[in-house]
């Protein structure tokens, strides 16, 4: 689908976003800015206990408070929901049991927030407190009282939520032919998205129709959850994405407060708003899973990987969320980064009494990336090789199929690596105690190859309407600040010879826009971009056809003749765009075209092959320069160089913005961010104490865009929003080793951990800080998967045909 570059006028330009003026003037309307007539304010009563049975809820006193208009408890919303069909384990209000501090129990809507808050105080809840489970190790033992979820739901021992085990290729033989085998253990602490905007939702219920404005990344999934829990047909519910104040994955699940305000509006007949407090946002969470990893790899004496065995244990928190997929993501993309001829992958996700974990920027992959990159560094040092050289020897090659069937197409790993090594002067870097550089790479999906709920429909749909007043594009995609609305406008403008400002947009409104699966898994540019491209090209053909007829070229116009009619600068051939619209409307009637995108079947012939395939992977390489002070343990990141293979930059300004934001967020995770608990409670549910990088902590970031022009991306484009976070974290850890000769095998790398590793070295122990061991757990018999021919590029029906044969 790639176009001829010389002809592109909008694509590739550093244009400002179509909504830039609204975003810099305070005019954009975020959910909490809505204030409807007679609107009620909702507050939610949350559990103060990490693990307890609810014995009784008495809300009678709250109901009697003047100004209170509606009170809900668990019995009003009994139907379970959850983002994945296999994990329908949440309730908007719990009736029987609470599973973390912050679990919703009751809710009040009142004429103002103060009355609502006072009414919460008047609700009496009796709990029977149970022993909480607060770590992976505890969750893999018989619980003191009872498992967090019923065994009837989990059908697994202890507090295990999901487990998986795969053998891709002959792993034993791979280890047998290795000259060197190494094992390491790593831990990646959980952290949270910390969007600047607290979640907020406003609902109305008028004429039997529910409307919800909300700060979400996916209006479609909220739509489905509301229909299920409220038992309303989908056609009676409208979900509108309000201007979005930051997501990073944290607003991808349907949330209790969205369901609660909807129910409140239905019960009270008045508009109802709920905006979470900052403390509640820490409990809503769905952030980075804490992950414990054990990795064993065999290499030849030349440094070629012969086999890898990777194990991960995820601390899922109290509910399923995206966790069943997260477990896969901790291991599945190792093979799209390095060529691993035989790969064993085991993973277990446990429930604990903490705020539920889910997808945060990079969804499940930063943890594995951290572990594998450091592990390979250590192997290189064992062999006396330069880590960069060892990694380069094992880079995945473009247009190959990995041992776990993932298909790699365009791949700019080599170019990215060369770019950052040169820019940073990595190989000739200054070698002195306390100063170091670290290098790491990564790959990430341009959208998941399979939908969250199984179906054969398109993942993105775009409709274009053209009439005598101009063009309107309709798409369910949600702009969360990354600029997805702008991408739609850029694509349509490019194809119709217009400027982005000429394209009216209607997005993220379930009543008026066709379905798009939303802003997660870095899918929007690739999928909605391709859908918009198809719709726009169809429209272009109609307009050209009408102009050609007018010029007397009529009939079934041969393609080459049609190409003589230029579409550019607001003109179609000899006619202005508006004249062409009039001609086409007169010729064809109402002008409407559609485009849709469905990724091809890519995954292999085995259960669980749906997690990991993507129509294209982005690639990144990064060098980090640090100063590390051996006396204080203080770590200063001086500079970051990052090169990102985005396929083609639809807009380089927006790509660089995504890369810089990813690097910053990666540094926060590497250095300080931590969602941790003490005695069953979140240690610091506030922005002051949950440390995140400020202007002063964020170094200069030098970004290089690498364009490999992907064969299936729109104009060759791939993702940019998540992949560039991944290499930053291990690069920091590698730089600390380069500076001080110690390994900190645990994220975040705090001064204390650096000092502990230095102390260990002084005592003659391993110069390391990190987890000691991976807990014992029986992963059972692995699913054995026959690897594909690495050159087999078949996808879709062809591939399915091959499976049947």
């Amino acid at each position, binding site marked *: 689908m790639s176009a001829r570059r010389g002809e592109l006028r909008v694509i590739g330009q550093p244009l400002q976003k179509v909504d830039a003026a609204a*975003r*810099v003037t305070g005019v954009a309307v975020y959910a909490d800015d809505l*204030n409807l007539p007679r609107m009620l304010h909702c507050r939610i009563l949350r559990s103060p206990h990490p693990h307890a049975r609810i014995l009784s809820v008495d809300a009678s006193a709250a109901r009697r408070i003047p100004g209170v208009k509606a009170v809900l408890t668990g019995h009003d919303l009994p139907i379970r929901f959850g983002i994945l069909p296999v994990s329908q384990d949440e309730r908007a209000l719990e009736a029987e049991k609470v599973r973390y501090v912050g679990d919703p129990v009751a809710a009040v809507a009142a004429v103002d927030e103060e009355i609502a808050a*006072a009414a919460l105080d008047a609700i009496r809840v009796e709990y029977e407190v149970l022993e909480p489970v607060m770590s992976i190790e505890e969750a893999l033992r018989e619980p003191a009282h009872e498992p967090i979820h019923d065994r009837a739901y989990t059908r697994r021992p202890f507090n295990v939520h999901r487990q998986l085990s795969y053998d891709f290729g002959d792993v034993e033989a791979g280890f047998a032919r290795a000259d060197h085998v190494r094992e390491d253990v790593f831990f990646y602490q959980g952290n949270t998205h910390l969007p600047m905007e607290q979640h907020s939702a406003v609902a109305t219920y008028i004429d039997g129709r529910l409307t919800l404005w909300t700060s979400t990344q996916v209006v479609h999934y909220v739509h489905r959850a509301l229909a299920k829990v409220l038992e309303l047909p989908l056609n009676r519910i409208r979900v509108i994405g309000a201007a979005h104040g*930051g997501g990073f994955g944290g607003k991808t699940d349907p949330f209790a407060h969205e369901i609660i305000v909807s129910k409140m509006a239905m019960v009270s007949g008045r508009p109802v708003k709920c905006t979470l407090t900052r403390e509640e946002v820490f409990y809503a969470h769905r952030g980075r899973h804490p992950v414990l990893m054990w990795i064993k790899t065999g290499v030849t004496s030349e440094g070629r990987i012969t086999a890898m065995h990777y194990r991960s244990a995820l601390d899922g928190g109290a509910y399923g969320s995206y966790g069943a997929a997260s477990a896969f993501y901790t291991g599945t993309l190792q093979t799209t980064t390095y060529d691993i001829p035989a790969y064993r992958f085991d993973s277990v996700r446990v429930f604990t009494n903490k705020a539920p974990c889910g997808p945060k920027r990079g969804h499940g992959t930063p943890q594995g990336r951290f572990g594998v990159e450091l592990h390979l560094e250590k192997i290189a040092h064992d062999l006396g090789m330069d880590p960069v050289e060892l990694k380069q020897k094992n880079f995945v090659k473009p247009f190959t199929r990995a041992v776990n069937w993932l298909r790699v197409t365009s791949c700019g790993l080599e170019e990215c690596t060369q770019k950052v090594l040169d820019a940073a002067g990595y190989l000739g870097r200054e070698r002195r105690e306390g100063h170091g550089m670290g290098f790491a790479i990564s790959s990430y999906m341009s959208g998941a190859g399979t939908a969250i709920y199984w179906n054969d429909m398109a993942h993105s749909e775009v409709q274009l309407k053209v009439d005598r007043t101009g063009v309107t594009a309709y798409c369910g995609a949600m702009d969360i600040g990354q600029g997805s609305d702008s991408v739609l406008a850029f694509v349509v403008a490019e194809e119709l010879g217009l400027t982005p400002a000429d394209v009216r947009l209607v997005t993220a409104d379930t009543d008026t826009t066709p379905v798009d699966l939303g802003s997660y898994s870095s899918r929007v540019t690739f999928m909605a971009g391709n859908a918009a491209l198809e719709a726009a090209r169809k429209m272009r053909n109609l307009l050209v056809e009408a102009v050609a007829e007018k010029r007397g070229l009529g009939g079934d116009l041969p393609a080459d003749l049609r190409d003589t009619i230029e579409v550019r600068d607001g003109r179609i051939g000899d006619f202005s765009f508006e004249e062409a619209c009039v001609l086409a409307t007169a010729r064809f009637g109402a002008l409407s075209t559609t485009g849709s995108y469905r990724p091809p079947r890519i995954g292999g012939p085995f259960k669980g092959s749906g997690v990991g395939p993507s129509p294209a992977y982005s690639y990144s390489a990064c060098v980090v320069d640090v100063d590390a002070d051996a006396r204080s343990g203080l770590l200063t990141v001086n500079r970051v160089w990052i090169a990102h293979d985005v396929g083609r930059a639809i807009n380089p300004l927006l790509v660089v*913005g995504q890369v810089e934001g990813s690097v910053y967020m990666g540094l926060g995770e590497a250095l300080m961010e931590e969602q941790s608990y003490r005695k069953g409670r979140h240690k610091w549910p506030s922005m002051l104490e949950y440390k995140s990088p400020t202007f002063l902590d964020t170094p200069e970031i030098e970004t290089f865009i690498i364009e490999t022009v992907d064969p299936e991306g729109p104009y060759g484009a791939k993702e940019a929003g998540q992949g560039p976070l991944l290499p930053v974290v291990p690069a920091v850890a590698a730089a600390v080793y380069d500076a001080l000769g110690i390994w900190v095998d645990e994220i975040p790398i705090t001064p204390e951990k650096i000092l502990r590793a230095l102390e260990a070295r002084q005592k003659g122990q391993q110069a390391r800080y990190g987890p000691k061991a991976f807990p014992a757990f029986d992963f059972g018999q692995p699913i054995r998967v026959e690897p594909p021919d690495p050159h087999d590029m078949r996808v879709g029906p062809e591939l399915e045909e091959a499976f049947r044969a």
Partner: protein
Amino acid sequence: MVDLCWFSFVMLNELDRQIQREPLNLRVNGEEHQILVPVHKTLLEVLREDLRLTGTKHGCELGECGTCTVLVDGQPQLSCLLLPIQLDDCEITTVEGMGSTAELHPLQQAFAELGAAQCGYCTPGMLLAARALLERNPLPSRDQIREALAGNLCRCTGYAKIVEAVELAAQRSLR
């Protein structure tokens, strides 16, 4: 326990009756507003709820994130920590007072052009803190920009484009 609940209910009614409401003159973006608000309401709440100036955002309401920054007599202040009764006779500037979509302030223009606003939620506070900086130091260094804006968190941009936008606006205004 029940008694305690009723106690808070009774207290609320008591409070309601006794809530002190003060008539105030608030000068915001050059416009005079006569308002009658409970004395415990913060400037942030009064701006957003009573004056409907929703351009001022909130991130924590505890003075931790800088999102709600406004200018009080030209100085950047956290509106979530201020009470309007402290501000009689002060000149308050919010993002609505900086520029409009019809005519952007040079800082807004630079933020828009360089992509310094992604989700845009921290942007109003960021713009006002930057404006105060440029008024006292028309050509700040990168480090001075970082220092001046260090109290404002942003999760989207990695701060890089914001620093560049403030630099660009400063350079343009000196031309």
